[in-house]
């Protein structure tokens, strides 16, 4: 960058005979901090008649002009008479704009209002109640649209449902398989340690089977789907909202709930039990391998024991959780997407919220299932 290097630096010289300040060189934004810190003298003359010359200025931009203006203001404060000479028209125009607007330059935008704890508490309560209302309204809307869609199969938007099944289900298969397999391995390892001390090795099939079928597989699937899908729904619908696509649908008299939310809910409803089953398969596989390696329980023994003591009933108890989890994840994801406002920040914030809320609701729902199962004594 020869050209930039060659640019002479900025300077301010004082000619004491003529009582004249001479501005030299480049009074540009890159030079200003140096000008301010070292070149502009801190001790100023008092009550003198001074001139400032701009004859030797090579470049004079608005930062330089503001810097010079501040200097002149300081001089005037010391009751000096200041006169500018040899500034060209353009430089003078710049200085006169600054003089004209000088009151505005000191303006500091008022910081955002601070409110008391009580105010924030009330505001948050209203926001949360509003969200609860919005969510309820959306659930109602979904139910209504679903009922009316029964007579018009076209309004179910089968291609969108298939796309959802593919994006949330098929593409999730590898990660669900891998994580479930690992969970199965870890689970049977931890339990195996205890069982081994009692010599009750064969019970590994019963214990790990129960845990995987009833709790671990539904939960691990739900956590993966909440992380992958709920965030994806929020980001998709959120960016459509920013792009005014949602408004476009409204103006055509179409319902975003019908076109965007319902296909996602139905798609996830279809795919969720399948994912849980997929997860059960691989978790059991992991448990089986680990039992063989660690406890020396053969594959055939493991599987026949699993069938006798755990059986299909426990598997179904796990699968019954699927619809609740699917609906929670899809609705939270879509609803948070609808809440996105027009800013890049907002997409991030709502996506975070959607994942956190989906996980929270999944755990709550799982607890509710446990309570119900224990009431029913199963």
């Amino acid at each position, binding site marked *: 960058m020869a050209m930039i290097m060659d640019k002479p630096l900025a300077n301010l010289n004082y000619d004491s005979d003529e009582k004249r300040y001479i501005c030299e060189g480049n009074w540009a934004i890159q030079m200003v901090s140096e000008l301010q810190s070292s070149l502009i003298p801190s001790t100023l003359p008092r009550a003198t008649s001074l001139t400032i010359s701009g004859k030797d200025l090579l470049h004079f931009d608005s930062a330089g002009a503001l810097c010079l203006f501040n200097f002149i203001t300081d001089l005037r404060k010391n009751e000096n008479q200041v006169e500018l000479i040899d500034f060209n028209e353009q430089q003078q125009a710049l200085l006169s704009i600054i003089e004209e607007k000088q009151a*505005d330059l000191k303006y500091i935008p008022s910081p955002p209002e601070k409110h008391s704890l009580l105010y924030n508490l009330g505001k948050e309560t209203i926001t949360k109640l509003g969200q609860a209302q919005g969510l309820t309204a959306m659930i109602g809307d979904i139910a209504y649209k679903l009922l009316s869609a029964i007579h018009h199969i076209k309004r179910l938007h089968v291609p969108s449902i298939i796309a959802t099944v593919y994006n949330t289900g098929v593409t999730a298969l590898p990660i669900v398989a891998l994580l479930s397999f690992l969970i199965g391995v870890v689970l049977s390892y931890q339990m195996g340690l205890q069982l081994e001390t009692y010599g009750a090795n064969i019970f590994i099939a019963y214990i790990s089977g129960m845990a995987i079928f009833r709790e671990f597989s539904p939960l691990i699937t739900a956590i993966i789907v909440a992380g992958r899908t709920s965030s994806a729904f929020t980001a998709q619908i959120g960016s459509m909202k920013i792009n005014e696509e949602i408004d476009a649908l409204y103006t055509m008299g179409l319902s975003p709930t019908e076109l965007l939310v319902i296909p996602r809910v139905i798609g996830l409803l279809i795919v969720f039990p399948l994912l849980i089953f997929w997860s059960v398969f691989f978790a059991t596989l992991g448990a089986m391998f680990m039992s063989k390696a660690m406890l020396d329980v053969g594959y055939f023994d493991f599987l026949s024991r699993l069938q006798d003591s755990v059986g299909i009933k426990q598997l179904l108890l796990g699968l019954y959780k699927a619809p609740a989890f699917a609906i929670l994840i899809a609705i939270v994801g879509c609803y948070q997407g609808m809440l996105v406002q027009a800013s890049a920040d907002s997409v991030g914030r709502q996506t975070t919220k959607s994942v956190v809320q989906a996980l929270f609701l999944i755990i709550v729902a799982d607890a509710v299932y446990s309570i119900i199962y224990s009431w029913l004594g199963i």
Partner: protein
Amino acid sequence: MDKPIIEISGLKNFLGGQWVHSDVNLTVKKGEILAIIGGSGSGKTTLLRSILMLQEPSAGRIHVFGEDVLSIDEADANEIRKRWGMLFQHSALFSALTVAENIMFPMKELTTLDSQFMRELAMLKLALVGLSKETAGKLPSELSGGMQRRAAAARAIAMDPELLFLDEPTSGLDPLSAKKFDELILFLRDTLNLTVVVISHDIESLKRTTDRVAFVGKGKIISVEPIEDLMNNKNPLIQDYFSKA
């Protein structure tokens, strides 16, 4: 002093399976306002993006401030980037920052100015683009389209660039706002000694502001001349363009 600010020769761009530019030659002189016009899809924005180093051209040479921008290293490129400002078509203000913070942002990152001076400088830029001081504390989303455009212009001139790029600055503005924005451009050119490259479709605005207009068509610059001459150009593409307007 009289070296051209931008020199483009033999620029070619291959994009999306077709040649957007086949042979673009263009020179921008110091202190002028040059407009680039042409039909939709004629590659005006691609040309601008090539100059701005946002897109590597397929072939050709681009010199900005006398430096070959296609072969310089990143540090030198950043030195050049400090000397120009760009006003994007959709303003591209940072949505999480207030207007004043938006203007101060490049100063904060690229200079060592103290914050008091930076704030005053930001307020000066706001005054220069004709926005009231109350605008400073607002978020971009709270401003109208025209005000956003002005705020974006204030950010584009934050670093006192020597070269200013404008991508369709008056599109979407009402005629009065567009006229005021043109006056702003002329005013900035005269006070800050800018060279301006503008993409525009607004004939009225071109008549008001530009010194020369470059017409892009068929992957080339067909003609560069003052707007009155260009409107009388006998080239069928140019005739066609102005007959639509």
